[in-house]
């Protein structure tokens, strides 16, 4: 045989073997051994900008729980992996967490595509994912608890506000978003909603830009032109990085919130950290939590966060902020802890059952409840950007609102199940039975 190549073959085989041995599942959990949980947030790549804070706040919450005695007397041991903003890697890492590390639950994901990528794995291995970000709905998995907002808990109240005289009585709507599922769905729902309010298609413009789009000169000029024909509001579902150039351009071209207000669904305290907010005062955002809320729970939450940031010497220091997805992560972890204690076990099926109806006093100042549709009841708040980069709440619901993951404004959603059905794993594993799963109302 060719002598030169033999070592290469051996080496290849050896690396494969090393992978095999290096990832053999660890020993079976002991009764008093720590409970392992997974944290699945991108720490590198394009999504690191948003997701790193969620990893931090999750670690903070686990530390807090461990300090106060853990769960059922057992400590929690978070397993942190980095899916690196790479969607197939999300699937691989979730399988690793569930199958090899045998974690009791996973807290993670930000983008819808990452959630879609891990979903089959969670359903196959019957894992539990806590997803903390506002999203487009159109999904209800028995293996996921959604602690972020569904469209009816964020987008629709914001538009109602814009239409009201309080919000400026807007007549025309410029919908602008990054071209992916969340903005598309949200805008589809909003268009149907606006129709129901008597707004014509000629008074609605819909524009999409690619990810990381950096030049909004033309679009802002278009908004100005659109606004000539009547009182206009801009509804922005622009994601991540593109917000800075968009808002800077708004400021540049003198579009003030008093004449054309922009309401954003993906701009929170974290995003505003990268922007000089003085020209943006008065533009709006709709969320379920703002850092500036004044209530004892939120004060404690913020205090704990800054103590954690200081203790771990995290970059950013006292300039770090809290935001809505961080609060949702915090609430999700605490609810999971309560559910485990109620169920007396970390067994996924038992915890899932115990999660329904779980209540937690959240930093948003309300007692939130987990619904049978696996979504949280959440209050909706509309905040205006202040010069210091925080929001002042100008409007909020009196009580938490129940989520509608299947929006009634999307045709074909009539008759979709209203809560997660008691599906058995056999039905789930595929086959035609899936289509005939019992519809529970």
């Amino acid at each position, binding site marked *: 045989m060719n002598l030169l190549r033999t070592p290469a073959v051996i080496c290849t085989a050896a690396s494969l073997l090393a992978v095999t041995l290096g990832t053999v599942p660890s020993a079976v959990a002991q009764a008093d051994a720590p409970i392992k949980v997974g944290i699945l947030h991108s720490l590198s790549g394009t999504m690191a900008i948003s997701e790193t804070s969620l990893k931090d706040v999750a670690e903070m919450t686990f530390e807090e729980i461990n300090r106060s005695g853990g769960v059922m007397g057992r400590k929690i041991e978070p397993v942190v992996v980095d899916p690196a903003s790479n969607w*197939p890697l999300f699937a691989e890492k979730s399988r*690793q967490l569930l199958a090899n590390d045998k974690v009791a639950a996973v807290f993670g994901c930000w983008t819808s595509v990452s959630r879609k990528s891990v979903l089959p794995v969670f359903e196959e291995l019957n894992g539990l994912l806590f997803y903390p970000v506002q999203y487009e709905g159109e999904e209800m998995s028995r293996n996921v608890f959604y602690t972020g907002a569904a469209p009816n808990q964020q987008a629709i109240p914001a538009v109602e506000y814009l239409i009201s005289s309080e919000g400026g009585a807007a007549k025309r709507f410029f919908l602008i978003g990054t071209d992916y599922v969340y903005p598309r769905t949200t805008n589809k729902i909003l268009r149907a909603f606006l129709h129901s309010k008597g707004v014509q298609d000629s008074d609605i413009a819909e524009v999409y830009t690619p990810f990381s789009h950096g030049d909004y000169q033309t679009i802002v000029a278009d908004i100005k032109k659109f606004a000539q024909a009547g009182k206009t509001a801009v509804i922005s579902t622009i994601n991540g990085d593109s917000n800075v150039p968009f808002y800077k351009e708004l400021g540049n071209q003198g579009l003030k919130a008093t004449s054309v207000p922009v309401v954003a669904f993906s701009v929170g305290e974290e995003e505003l950290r990268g922007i000089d907010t003085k020209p943006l005062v008065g533009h709006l955002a709709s969320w379920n939590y703002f850092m500036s809320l004044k209530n004892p729970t939120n004060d404690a939450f913020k205090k704990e966060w800054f103590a954690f940031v200081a203790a771990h010497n995290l970059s950013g220091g006292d300039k770090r902020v809290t935001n809505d997805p961080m609060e949702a992560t915090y609430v999700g972890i605490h609810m999971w802890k309560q559910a485990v204690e109620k169920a007396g076990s970390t067994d996924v099926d038992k915890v899932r059952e115990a999660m329904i109806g779980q209540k937690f006093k959240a930093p948003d100042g309300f007692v939130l409840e987990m619904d049978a549709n696996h979504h949280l009841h959440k209050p909706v708040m509309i905040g205006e950007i202040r010069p210091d980069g925080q929001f002042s709440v100008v409007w909020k619901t009196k009580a938490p609102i129940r989520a509608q993951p299947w929006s009634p404004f999307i045709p074909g959603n009539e008759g979709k199940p209203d809560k997660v059905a008691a599906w058995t794993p056999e039905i789930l594993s595929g086959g035609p039975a899936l289509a005939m799963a019992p519809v529970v109302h």
Partner: protein
Amino acid sequence: MEAVETTVKGVVAPRPVRPWGWLLWGVGVVALYALILICTLALPANHPLHLSVYLMTLIGKIMCYAIVALALNLVWGYTGILSLGHGLFFTLGGYAMGMYLMRSIGLDGVYHSPLPDFMVFLDWKALPWFWQGTDHFLYALLLVVLVPGLLAWIFGFFAFRSRVRGVYLSIMTQALTFAAMLLFYRNETGFGGNNGFTDFKRILGFPITAPGTRTVLFLATLTVLLLSLLASRFIVRSRLGQVLTAIRDGESRLTFLGYNPLGYKLFIWTFSAVLCGIAGALYVPQVGIINPNEMSPANSIEMAIWVAVGGRGTLFGPILGAVCVNAAKSYLTASFSSSWLYFLGAIFVLVPIFLPRGLVGLLQRRRK
């Protein structure tokens, strides 16, 4: 530029292979297949030698990458054309297979429609023309080969005819994959936008998560990998291979000797793209998602790095490189989640300086 790259003398002088060498290989391969079958299907799940689904999907994925590395090595290692756009061909193959898998979901999607969910959602009433027929497996396979092949042929024909080469060609391939990525990201294009294709349920009627299906996919990938290796070996050792090496080391001189490099380059370029397409098609059902991110220029650069790390211009080098880099990535992202990029970056920096001939070069030097 070609002149200075002669430092890598990749082609090993053809030497006669004794018949028992082949026999040994054959026996080895058969034993390997048998071993895999035993480890996946026969052994109980808690047996220490059982090949878990996690490992099977991981190794399956890495083997797909290894096929890509082999394909890239044919054009870069042997012909001297560095493509920074092979991710495009890989993804195109993946999308062709992905659409077949989407169609196989049938009425079981969220909206219970014969159309894929993302089309229902975007209010498409009918399947666009370019997806017609993708519910037939064989037609999908044909697309897997034809689409990357055709695109590569057209691009290559114009590029090589105008004698675009070296870095210019690399940048052009990068522009191509970047443009395609932007196009695929658009929801109007009809490729599922950022979410791509996911939530597959079955392939050829078999549930896609069943152990048997996984094992078959795994073995199919292994087979394709071995066949590509054999094909590479055959090409490299033929007269074609010698011309390709000559193109790499002195294209002008070859032209003066009366050869027209266009046909040779075009053949190896297209062949390489087709291999990538097949690798993509095998990748999708095992990984469970295909989306435009796979076309990002950084991914294609990483592919070139696998080849460089393993040793370009050698037969096994690319496979070794793909396996090592990806295994390291898998391990580091879990164990050093906040600092793994330092390790990976350092590998990418150090290899070209200290191991110009890659890991294989290192092993060869040891031997001498």
